[in-house]
């Protein structure tokens, strides 16, 4: 066990946990931020995507000991009132079916738009290909990313 001071969604959280624990489980089990989802545990599905600084990362592969001073943003902290352009676009296009993967999709999409505000279709596909949606909402996700890019 070791103590970590983590900067999560603009707040500092002190966590006493095994250093190998992935951020996914730190967020869910220890901090009760459950918007970040467990899907595969091997960085293949994208359900656990969070932002480390400005980058979208798979929190199931990010040990808490590797975070250091870097800022972590989860779906809960993406905006104060659920009004980030990507979240708004998701609601406008009414993207979700079951909804389980959508937090991860939104975190990947918002990181993409931050570094590339006007991505092409191919760039959207390349960025989003790591996120599985078992319900098959891909066409709506693509539309929503474009809608957010235009806003």
């Amino acid at each position, binding site marked *: 066990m070791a103590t970590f001071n983590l900067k999560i969604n603009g707040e500092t959280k002190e966590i006493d946990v095994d250093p190998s624990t992935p951020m996914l489980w730190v967020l869910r089990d220890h901090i009760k931020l459950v918007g970040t989802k467990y*899907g595969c*545990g091997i960085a293949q599905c994208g*359900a656990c995507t969070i932002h480390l600084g400005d980058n979208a990362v798979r929190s199931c592969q990010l040990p808490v000991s590797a975070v250091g001073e870097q800022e972590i943003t989860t779906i*809960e902290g993406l905006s104060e009132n659920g009004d980030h352009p990507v979240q708004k676009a998701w609601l406008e296009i009414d993207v*979700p079916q*079951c*909804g389980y993967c959508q937090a991860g999709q939104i975190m990947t999409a918002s990181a993409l738009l931050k570094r590339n505000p006007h991505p092409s279709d191919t760039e959207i596909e390349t960025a989003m*290909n790591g996120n599985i949606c078992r319900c*098959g909402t*891909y066409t709506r996700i693509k539309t929503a990313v474009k809608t957010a890019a235009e806003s």
Partner: protein
Amino acid sequence: MNTVKTKIDRRTFIKNTSLAGGGLVLGFSWLNSCKPKEAEKLSAMEMPEEWFQMNGYIKIGENGLVTIMSPNPEGGQNIKTSMPMIVADELDVNWKNVVVEQAPLNTDLYTRQFIGGSNAIRFGWSGLRMAGATARQMLKEAAAMAWGVPVAEITTSGGIITHQTSNKSASYGEMASAASQITVPEEVPLKEIKDFNIIGTSRKNVDGTKIVTGKPLFGIDTYQDGMLTAMIIHPPAFGLKFKSMDDAEAKSMPGIMNIFPIKVLKDDYVRQHFDTCTFLEVVAIVGKTTWEVMQAKKTLQVAWEPFETYTEERVPYGRSQYTMTIPAGLENSEVHTAKMADMATKKATEVRRDGNPETAFKKAAKVVERTYTAPFLVHNCMEPMNFFANVKENSAQLIGPLQKAELTEHAVAAQLGIPESNIDIQLTRLGGGYGRRSYAHWVMEAALISQKMKAPVKLVYSREDDMTGGIYRSTYHVSYKAALDADNNLTAVHVNAGGIPESPLYANRFPAGAVDNYLAESWSIDSNITIGSFRAPRSNFMASAEQSFLDEVAEAAGKDPIDFRLELLKKAKENPVGERNDYDAERYAGVLQLVKEKSNWGNGDTSLNRGISAYFCHNSYAAQVVDMRWENDKPIIDKVTCAIDCGIVINPDAATNLCEGGIVDGIGNALYGELTFINGVPQKRNFDKYRMIRMSESPREIEIHFVESDVNPTGLGEPTFPPIFAAVANALYKATGKRHYDQPFVF
């Protein structure tokens, strides 16, 4: 005006008079409850100070805010929005003044809280309408009494009650207290279809905001004080059972509370249809946190041994008890393939015969004969199987994602030795279901672990446990044979269908009824690999084979594939063969005609590689055209045009979303879906090997067209899924010149 007798489903409307005096009703769980702040955000009104219960579905606040309970669990079909829309329309309220809550399992208040078979809306339709119409009638009667006017002169609109002659009006909120005291009417008027103002209009997902902001909605998001985390280890291969374990090291690891084997079902328990249990004994590991349990799981040494052939007594849904054999052995996919090919050459059980197929084949000018196969498929719900259980001395609280809670309650009660009436099941949103969450062995496991630990426990499957745990879609094999006469008329069809461990045959589906000489045979081979309903069970394979085959027969006959189908459907309508045909030929032809028109089929654009397919299942009709390009040895699907007839459409945009999903899911499974076995061991354990369709592989565009209809609504979760497999196969043929018979097609 339609009127309906409320007594048909009267128990739904039993009033709880103790609640009529107001106050918040029913103890909904923290997970499902609509907290005041959220309700304010979700509705145009503030939370009322008092609620008045009208019936099991509706409570009305003194300020007119309406809470509608959504009875069935939400798994992505959007019924948590569309079922309350039906209630709200008949109640005649403004949708913006409605908040929706997920109802817990309550067999006294609700009927059929299932999702499966695309039946939630279909079977919910009249009960939901009655719930709304009954409450509206009670509000009108309350106003009539208060104002001393005849109830027949009272009208409602958007939550306002009006008596025009006396110029009186009141909101539902003002009349709610009095209305909740009124005797439930024996008969209530229902709206005419033309008067619907919520049904048939697109309304946003009621959980949309919670989903995009990461609020706890799913079973796996359940966390309670003192809650422990449990995982299981099941045998690594089908055909093995638990023998012994060395848990000394694992038990000493940080955070680990206990490790023990559990028998999932009691030996004398008679299984209902959805009680399929792959592994009768599993090892439970219980600890404080998920990561700690995962680490201990890696070090645990478990020994397994082969089991002997055994039998299970089963009571299938709506049929009589039978004995099922689970054979011993470690099975291999190669052997499965060979066994199925061999079975297909033998005489099987004749399920339907029309005319004289043998003679027709002898007389045929042309015979087309083809064989189609498909592998086992895994559901791969994105939310792995999980459940929360807090089992006490003589009661249990269970929370989680579950498709068939009512049946599960019975099964859990039997395993725990606790009366059903003391088992409380709270339904959460499902992170996907597709049939998988109908088979609730993991609920038993969670409950038994909690009972042993005497503590609240959340059981979570790892992705690997989930993918290698059984309850798959069967592997199938079907051979089709068609006879054409000298004028290229289809004179006979022979279908021989089987699988491991179930046959996919639907003997009375098209083209049965459209062919004078028809023979359908069925067979199956026992296996210890367990199966369960998988989005449009059996149809998902039969459609792929039948609609690929008809494409090839049309080509052999020198006919346009849509015209060929329409010609057969014309015969099925005007001069049907046999009496058991389970489709409506006119509606079937309707979707083909609509997709032909909307896709601009036959427009002479030879650059398009187009595949057509149409199928009837789950009481709805779907036809699809796939437009495909072939680039860098890979298919690119530019567009899918889909026509669907599911009767009245409740929530068009949400319905469109669901149809799009069925199409993308079907393309993914047709191209990539497959699980194989070597010595009983599933050869894929996670998404690194099990290929799921990704964004770049899904269609660039999907267009959904609904047939305008006044017919009562039928299902949508499944019907767009089966036909797309064949539309893809038929487009692939156009794009590559090669027919595809064995799934997955893989590129």
